């Protein structure tokens, strides 16, 4: 265990902040998601020693804070395509992307929360299914099934978009 210095905090911020905001955005608006992530980093800096697994700690803390925020506001985030389109971009828009970033955002927003969080943790946080299972509090097989279901849902959405564009 080592104490947390400004250099280390800055390094973690650079590495994880964007993915953490993406993770929190599924439950919260962009501004609230950023507030939650910022609070988590400030809480981290106040700790005497660094957590053993910083990545897992950060995502678990953001997840808990986002859900707590939802409960305190007494409302659930509605995962509508319109809402997702109104929000600021979840991804950077680059011409060489294999998937259109906006379409991927809409597809992600159409997923149930328990599937979407698994996708973010797996693809952009780079976690194993075991690590994801620890964070979401489910078994590894459940997490894997959710991940497969999420990929199938995204694929359907992408194919639908392609067909609509071609028509």
């Amino acid at each position, binding site marked *: 265990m080592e104490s947390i210095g400004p250099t280390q905090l800055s390094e973690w*911020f650079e590495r994880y902040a964007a993915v953490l905001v993406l993770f929190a955005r599924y439950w919260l608006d962009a501004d609230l998601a950023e507030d939650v992530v910022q609070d988590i980093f400030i809480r981290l800096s106040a700790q005497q020693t660094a957590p053993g697994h910083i990545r897992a700690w950060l995502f678990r803390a953001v997840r808990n804070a986002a859900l707590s925020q939802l409960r305190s506001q007494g409302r659930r985030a509605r995962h509508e395509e319109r809402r997702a389109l109104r929000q600021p971009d979840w991804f950077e828009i680059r011409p060489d992307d294999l998937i259109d970033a906006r379409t991927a955002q809409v597809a992600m927003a159409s997923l149930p929360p328990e599937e979407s969080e698994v996708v973010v943790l797996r693809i952009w946080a780079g976690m194993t299914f075991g690590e994801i299972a620890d964070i979401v509090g489910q078994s590894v097989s459940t997490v894997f099934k959710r991940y497969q279901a999420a990929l199938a849902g995204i694929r359907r959405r992408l194919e639908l978009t392609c067909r609509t564009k071609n028509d």
Partner: protein
Amino acid sequence: MQNEERLTPAERELEAALGALRPAAAGIDRDCLMYRAGERAGGRRQRLWQGATAMFAVALMTSLLIRPAPRYVDRYVYVEAGAPARVADARPVHEPGPADDGVQGLLMQDATGYVRLREAVLVRGIDALPVAPGGSATVGEPLPRVERILNAVPPSQTPWNLLGVERLLAPGEHL
């Protein structure tokens, strides 16, 4: 790991395509975050010091309030009557040898001897000074120290002669 191997090629392809998307940069001001983090860490340290100071203040007040009354203890010290003083028990300050005229030995003593002599003089007075052999005017009564010194120095080496004062005088003039 086994679960990862269970993914179909199509799922892997979609996974790779999604992974190529880069999350949009967070709109969090990094400098602001670092400042607030430092502020919070500083506040924690400040509270630590404040807590420690308050704790010590309470401990000090408690110890002052419940301080036990001073105890007087009667202790008897028996002193043997006529016992020689400690300094006098020390070994002789200076024992003039056959070729020692006393004063020269006094002047040539090493630092330890000087300290011992000084202590003896403080305790016993001037009588503690060693007596120059044959230098006393009256038997048993040592001369005052200055006179003894002057008597011990040969006439040709009076202090003013040693200092070269005579050179300032006119020829035939004496002090």
